[in-house]
């Protein structure tokens, strides 16, 4: 999970300029700025939106587990480790920005089963994210998941407001399901 190469767009809106940050697959972004809208387009991927309503800090990640997560086989276990890592990266960035773990609330989006030959990928990603939030005690207050259509999500991280729309004929519909993003240096061991 990287926090680089976010696409940014500036648009005029009401009293000032708003900045859109496109959260790409394999990345996350955390902010407390009211003028930033986090946005992404999801197929089978999951976007977790977290926010702390007291600190007014929020963030979004965007990930895809290419195999059903689980500990009973090596591919599932690898997906599980990657998914937990993706969630932890987002949570840690939230905490560094001033959020308090016990106050964090979650939204979940995505997990569509876009391709008939990959029926379970979206569902498996939803299940992973829901299990993680339950196990880690993070309340899930809103979700728009599953189905067969892609979604566009806009998240005002500072206020926790989100908008989710079903979209069609977008690039995500053509995208192949890809394996988890490799993470530079991950798993490396250095003994002092």
């Amino acid at each position, binding site marked *: 999970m990287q926090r680089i190469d976010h696409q940014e767009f500036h648009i005029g809106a009401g009293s000032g300029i708003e900045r859109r940050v496109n959260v790409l697959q394999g990345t996350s972004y955390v902010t407390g700025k009211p003028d930033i809208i986090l946005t992404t387009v999801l197929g089978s991927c999951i976007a977790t939106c977290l926010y702390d309503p007291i600190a007014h800090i929020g963030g979004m990640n965007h990930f895809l587990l290419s195999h059903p997560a689980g500990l009973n086989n090596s591919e599932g276990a690898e997906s599980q480790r990657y998914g937990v890592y993706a969630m*932890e990266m987002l949570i840690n960035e939230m905490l560094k920005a001033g959020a308090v773990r016990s106050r964090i609330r979650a939204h979940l989006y995505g997990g569509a089963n876009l391709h008939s030959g990959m029926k379970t990928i979206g569902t498996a990603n939803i299940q992973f994210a829901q299990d993680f939030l339950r196990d880690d005690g993070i309340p899930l207050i809103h979700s728009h998941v599953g189905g067969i259509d892609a979604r566009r999500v806009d998240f005002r991280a500072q206020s926790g407001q989100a908008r989710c729309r079903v979209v069609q004929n977008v690039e995500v519909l053509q995208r192949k399901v890809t394996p988890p993003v490799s993470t530079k240096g991950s*798993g*490396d061991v250095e003994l002092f």
Partner: protein
Amino acid sequence: MILTVDDSKSMRMLLRNALTQRGYEVVEAEDGVAALEWLRDNSPGLVITDINMPRMDGFGLIEALRGETRWDSTPILVLTTESSNEKKSRARDAGATGWIVKPFDPEKLASAVRRVLH
């Protein structure tokens, strides 16, 4: 016995699975404070700790352990999403035995555990 310290229950479950599959007994704590409470009456062979945790983070835990002669020689591995040299140096200076970057590879983790335990 290995004490794992991480504020994420999901991460603790992953660690428990990886270590128990290799024959190790595992005890879990959710942060540095909980770890120190358990350590008052118990002596693990190894501590594996996260860095970013509420109440007491991994640096605080390492410093607290190395501040007592009782824990002088107990190996402490840091398992973290952090990869900066600054934080790695801080952990080393505080007395950590090693540094592992998440997401962990079970085989590399097991290898490191074997090396510090023997």
